[in-house]
């Protein structure tokens, strides 16, 4: 289980995140929502030790983040940032193999190889295995990095805006894949998403931030309410029933 207490992050004198605390459920898709600059990415980066908090603590499976050995933690938790990029010429296959580094230290066993093939199959990337990642389209590259995260086979997977710049078809594919992972393999997927309707249909739990503070947290159903969403986004949003779920309308 991931929990955190009193996390703050300050640049110069300005707080981008203030006294955030929550205990997240240990399974399912957990969505972080909020307007631009609400502190979602900052929070994700702090949970995944990419960024040091100015104050407060994060607990992963009950152990304080700063007490974790970073290699051991990489077997438990991984993060995929926005538009990843590498200067090196790396093929898709090699990239996904990097996902096994925390387990293998770079020397692949049979088990590692199986996990790599499995990740490529799940993301439907097998046919691109030998291609260099800098030759792929943006969506394919995103998929390749997701495959790496899957190969890493961690309990917690953090995604910072994985749907950025992707078309609808690919976005739906990725969300379905994450949903499958959370259901079939009992993974906990933490995700920052801008499209509130993806949250409504796929997320199990929602953390809503505004101005660097966590304002609401709870089951998706309890958050998908017109008054709460209006407060978070400062705009009129109506929530309508649709196909057994809820759809948010905010276009007029």
């Amino acid at each position, binding site marked *: 289980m991931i929990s955190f207490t009193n996390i703050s992050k300050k640049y110069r004198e300005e707080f981008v995140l203030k006294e955030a605390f929550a205990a997240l459920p240990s399974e399912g898709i957990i969505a972080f929502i909020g307007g631009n600059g609400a502190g979602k990415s900052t929070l994700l980066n702090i949970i995944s*030790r990419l960024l040091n908090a100015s104050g407060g603590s994060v607990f992963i499976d009950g152990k304080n983040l700063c007490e974790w050995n970073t*290699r*051991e933690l990489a077997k438990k938790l991984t993060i995929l940032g926005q538009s*990843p*990029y*590498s200067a090196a010429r790396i*093929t898709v296959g090699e990239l996904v193999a990097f996902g096994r580094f925390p387990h293998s*230290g*770079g020397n692949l066993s049979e088990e590692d190889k199986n996990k790599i093939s499995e990740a490529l199959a799940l993301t439907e990337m097998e046919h691109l*295995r030998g291609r260099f990642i800098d030759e792929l389209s943006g969506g394919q590259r995103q998929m390749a990095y997701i495959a790496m995260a899957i190969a890493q086979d961690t309990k917690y997977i953090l995604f910072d805006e994985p749907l950025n710049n992707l078309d609808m078809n690919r976005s739906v594919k990725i969300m379905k894949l994450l949903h499958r992972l959370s259901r079939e393999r009992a993974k906990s997927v933490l995700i920052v998403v801008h499209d509130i309707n993806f949250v409504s249909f796929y997320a199990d739990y929602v953390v809503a931030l505004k101005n660097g503070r966590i304002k609401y947290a709870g089951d998706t159903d309890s958050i998908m309410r017109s008054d709460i969403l209006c407060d978070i986004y400062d705009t009129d949003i109506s929530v309508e029933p649709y196909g057994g779920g809820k759809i948010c309308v905010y276009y007029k």
Partner: protein
Amino acid sequence: MRNSSKRLSAAGFSAALVLLAALSALYLFGGVSAETWDYNIPRRLNILAAIAVVGTAVGLSAVVFQTVTENYVLTPGIMGLDNLYIFIQTLIIYFLGSGEGGMMTSSAHFLLTLALMAGASVGVFVFMFRINGGDVYFVVLAGLVFGIAFGGLSNFMQVIIDPSEFSVLEGRMFASFNRINVDLLGVSAAATAAVFLWLAADFKKLDVLSLGRNPSIALGVEYNRTVLKTLVSVSILTSAATVLVGPITFLGILIVSIARFIFPTYRHCVLVPGTVFIGICILVFGMLIAERMLQFAVPLGVIINFAGGIFFIGLMLKIKRL
């Protein structure tokens, strides 16, 4: 895919080895007659040994430096160590003169310069890295800016130095293999070998670092520690090579770019030896040109910097995205 790239690497290594053997033989035995044998062969063997040390130090440091800076157009030579070396030499000549005291003959002098350079650069880099929360570019830029300041200071002293003493200094401002001291060669070789072994344990981690900072942390690499260790290694390697033969700023970019072309891989256990081999080939080739074609008129360091510079501009024009 992987098999074919392995085969390509193997072919590259064989070609480099053959080329190296041919070049070395040409250098070693070219123009030697029975009378000059006793003079030339030991001298040239010493030079070849020095070339091996410098090629290893520069090749290794160039590859790992590019990995931690995530950039393939930078080279450790720009981190200001060259200017620091020239500054130290200028100070020595200025205050001790070009006589016995200022000569790079004593081991003490050599060790002092080596310790001063490695110590100062490691100190500055570690400090800069710490205060800036682990930004490599800031560290590189700090080194570079210190280099500019040292360059300005030595420039000033060079203008007011006595012209006859300047000519001694001029000899040290550009890398040359013609005044190698065999005793000191051992010190640089030992330092280079030690750092090589120390860093070789991290080659797999450095492979992961090719992905960039955040992915490597997500994959469980101790990013700050690995980068710091690499920067410290680069300082020591660059100091060892520079103190031995003098500054060769752009040798690194020259050889690592050729190596990336011949061995298109991110794997350090292939790329590092490949770069080292190519470095040694280039240096032997450069010696052939400096000695046989230009009759010692221009030091090797100046030739290498010239060639490396042209190569750098070509690289800039070729690469689509940096």
